[in-house]
């Protein structure tokens, strides 16, 4: 099954471990990771994407593409209450509005929009691994990540109407290989 996942960790260091552990699962054939990135929410509520240290100055704050992915993971209830995208994602009111709309637009039917909620929230000081994965079963990812103190949230890729709406910055931020994350 093809899924978007977010694994929330208490801090950056644990998220880095989580990223490497996820790619290690790929190496063993327990899951196929198509792309992944580490994000964190700082004490002011702003969300950043970790870059490779060779990319310093090239990649910056979360854009609409990754914001839409966050929206797809957070679900409509979070958007409606403002508990996730605008506030928890910490991307600012104007940008948060755009991301909320984009996230809404990428969801499949109305019924599903009403019922879907993963509960994914990224609080201040927390970090998360975002990834696009193919999994034949969930246990390897769930067990490995919980062993590192991470909590896994999933959204089936088939639930997302059009991931092209994630935009070009999705490819820009989500690395298709393991890397050493770095926050500028």
């Amino acid at each position, binding site marked *: 099954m093809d899924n978007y996942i977010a694994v929330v960790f208490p801090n950056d260091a644990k998220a880095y471990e989580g990223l490497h552990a996820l790619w290690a699962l790929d190496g063993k054939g327990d899951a196929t990771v198509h792309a992944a990135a580490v994000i964190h929410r700082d004490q002011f509520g702003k969300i950043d994407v970790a870059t490779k240290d060779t990319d310093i100055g090239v990649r910056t704050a979360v854009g609409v593409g990754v914001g839409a992915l966050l929206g797809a993971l957070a679900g409509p209830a979070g958007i409606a209450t403002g508990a996730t995208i605008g506030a928890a994602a910490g991307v600012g009111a104007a940008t948060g509005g755009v991301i909320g709309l984009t996230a809404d637009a990428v969801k499949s039917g109305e019924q599903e929009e009403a019922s879907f909620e993963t509960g994914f929230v990224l609080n201040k000081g927390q970090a998360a691994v975002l990834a696009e994965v*193919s999994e034949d079963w969930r246990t390897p990812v769930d067990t490995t990540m919980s062993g590192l103190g991470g909590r896994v949230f999933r959204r089936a890729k088939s639930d997302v109407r059009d991931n092209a709406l994630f935009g070009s910055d999705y490819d820009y931020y989500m690395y298709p290989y393991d890397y050493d994350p770095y926050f500028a």
Partner: protein
Amino acid sequence: MSQASVKDALEQAREHAQALQAKIDANQAKDDVKIHAELEKVSAQAQKLAAGLKVLAENQRADAKLHVQKAQASLEDAAKRAKDALGSAGADLKTKNQAVIARAREGLTHLSQAVAASRAAAAKPSTN
């Protein structure tokens, strides 16, 4: 060729594509001279990888085969674009380099999907 060795070859091809992508990504922040030098190597490596995929595709199941063929086409195009970009400079070079990155990434995405399809097929109980 055994099923295991086919799978290994596919996974190895993906690893090579990941290494190539990491190299191309790192090329973004460099100056024109360094980008030119890297693009020559990238073009050769992408072409070599694509040629390997053409052979590899023949040994794949239908679902994985389609992805491998698409990966081959994307990498061939990336190789061609990398070669064409050698005659450019400045902003034009950066733009063309971005196109190389995008096409190589597309190829890698298809290879990852081929690996996922191959692994999913291997995980299913045999009906024989």
